[in-house]
């Protein structure tokens, strides 16, 4: 158990122990703080600012079977309280990833959740099988069925219940019965609960909510789209209310299913909102670009606000906002 001693504001110097242990299905983590996939690479860069063994886990940037260049630049546009990105899943391919990135994380003792992305259902299955054999440091898979930066919007599996379920059941078949898998869902759907339910029925342990929203910026000097990829994924505090809503709706419908909440978390108070809405863990994404120490800072701030609100354990606060008065 990791307990952090915090002194709440106005607490007259009396230290309070807040237990940050959390449970994602059968998976126990000493902290609910994770990195959001695609916002931490494979951990090495952030390890210069944060002791990654003190957070719950690093969720790696989505890996595909083959090396992938990603899209042309510009890949990024700043937006009010957020940003639009169009990276296009740049990555070294699963062979190099398993040869270099995962062993580095393992050597540092960092709990690792590997995010996988496939062009088709079969690639998801093959990736899941490969990563499953990568060793004990990989404690779970996140299945990225919701990246908006693909040429064919039909490939956003998370936009339809049946295609989402097809990917998840294939991944489940390839990793065996007990290994934790989390389906990462898109908020760009009419009914996220329907997609969530389909993923759970197909064998997902839990759900990661949410991926970026599809957005667009036009450059008013060049009179063309600001991103080379035309559209991109919107992230940052601008999308936080959408994310909190998604966590709230899915937790209300599926209260026993562990949720990883993310979307614009910049402070411990932001993280606390997700916990109250029903998330058992939260992930920090765009905030890492703003503040490379954000993981540690948010963890400390979350402890403090839990203590200030009278919670001695994170577990007691999960979904608390759903309680009837």
């Amino acid at each position, binding site marked *: 158990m990791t307990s952090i001693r915090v002194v709440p504001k106005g607490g007259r110097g009396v230290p309070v122990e807040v237990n940050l242990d959390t449970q994602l299905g059968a998976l126990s983590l000493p902290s609910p703080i994770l990195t959001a996939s695609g916002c931490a690479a494979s951990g090495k860069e952030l390890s210069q600012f944060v002791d990654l063994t003190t957070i719950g886990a690093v969720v790696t940037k989505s890996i595909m079977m083959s090396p992938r260049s990603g899209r*042309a630049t510009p890949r990024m546009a700043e937006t009010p*309280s957020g940003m639009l990105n169009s990276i296009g899943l740049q990555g070294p391919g699963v062979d190099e990833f398993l040869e270099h990135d995962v062993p580095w994380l393992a050597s540092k003792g960092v709990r690792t959740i590997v995010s996988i992305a496939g062009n088709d259902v079969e690639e998801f299955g093959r990736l899941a099988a490969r990563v499953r054999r990568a060793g004990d440091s990989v404690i779970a898979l996140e299945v990225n069925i919701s990246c908006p930066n693909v040429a064919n919007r039909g490939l956003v599996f998370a936009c339809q219940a049946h295609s989402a379920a097809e990917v998840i059941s294939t991944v489940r078949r390839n990793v065996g019965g007990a290994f934790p898998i989390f389906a990462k869902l898109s908020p760009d759907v009419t009914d996220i609960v329907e997609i969530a339910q389909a993923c759970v029925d197909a064998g997902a342990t839990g759900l990661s909510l949410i991926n970026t929203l599809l957005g667009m910026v036009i450059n008013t000097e060049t009179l063309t789209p600001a991103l080379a990829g035309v559209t991109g994924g919107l992230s940052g505090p601008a999308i936080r209310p959408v994310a909190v809503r998604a966590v709230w709706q899915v937790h209300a419908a599926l209260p026993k299913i562990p949720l990883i909440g993310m979307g614009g978390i910049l402070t411990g108070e932001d993280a606390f909102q997700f916990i109250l809405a029903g998330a058992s863990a939260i992930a920090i994404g765009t905030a890492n670009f703003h*503040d490379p120490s954000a993981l540690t800072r948010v963890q400390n701030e979350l402890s403090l606000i839990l203590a200030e609100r009278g919670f001695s354990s994170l577990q007691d606060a999960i979904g608390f906002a759903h309680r009837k008065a």
Partner: protein
Amino acid sequence: MSYQPLQVEGELLSNKRVGAYHLITIVVPGIPERIRPGNFVALSVGGESTSTLLRRSFSVYQAQERGLYGGTLELVIAAHGPGTRWLAALAPHQMLNVVGPLGRPFPIPKDPVHALLVGGGYGSAPLFMLADALRQRGCRVDMALGAASADRLFGALEARRVTNALSIATDDGSLGVQGRVTDAARSILERSSIDVIYACGPMPMLAALSTLGAEFDVMVQCAVEESMACGIGICMTCVLPVRGSDGVVRMSRSCVDGPIFAGDRVLWDSVGTVPEETLGAPKASGH
């Protein structure tokens, strides 16, 4: 080998207008002594409740280990967007969150070579620390500075102090000779035996200098300017196509793989695209 970056709360000491730019001095303990020529720092902008979350990266003009107020960094700001306008308007005592040193510094030769340093606009900023370091190694340092006009030329006075010879070119002829800095560089290459070129400025200038370097068989070390969101290597936005020592073209991050690249390794004509030969380039169906 570079130093590991620190994240430090700094305090603005001064903000001076220099031509079209602002020169800001930040007291920032711990970072100045780690800065080597070509390193950059990433600043958060907009204050505590900012809605502009992405860091702004600046190459370091001067780093003083000790001053009256402690270690300081001097940065040159061109106010052209909401973040840089905020920085340019700062008053002393404003706190600024600084991450650095970042990026690979300029490689410095062991031997006392003859170097040509070329700066375009405020891209000249990192060349002055570099000139000092080269002269300490016994190098001869020529410098060529260019800009659209005199007010956009940064550091002409300082350049006289730190170089053996200085050429200045402006598009409108308001300072030095009228013309391009690359033409000034060509005439230096024609009359002197230059061993290495160091360059920082706009991409077209770096591309032209790389071609010039190839023509005269001189290595060109280029500090690129790509737009970055984080500066520390995690956002993958500041990429450009670069051929590695293994011959393979990759979309390389200018923040951690650069910002200094050998000019003959960058596929200049393809910046802003993904060349077909890039590792993992999209097939006809695209990404």
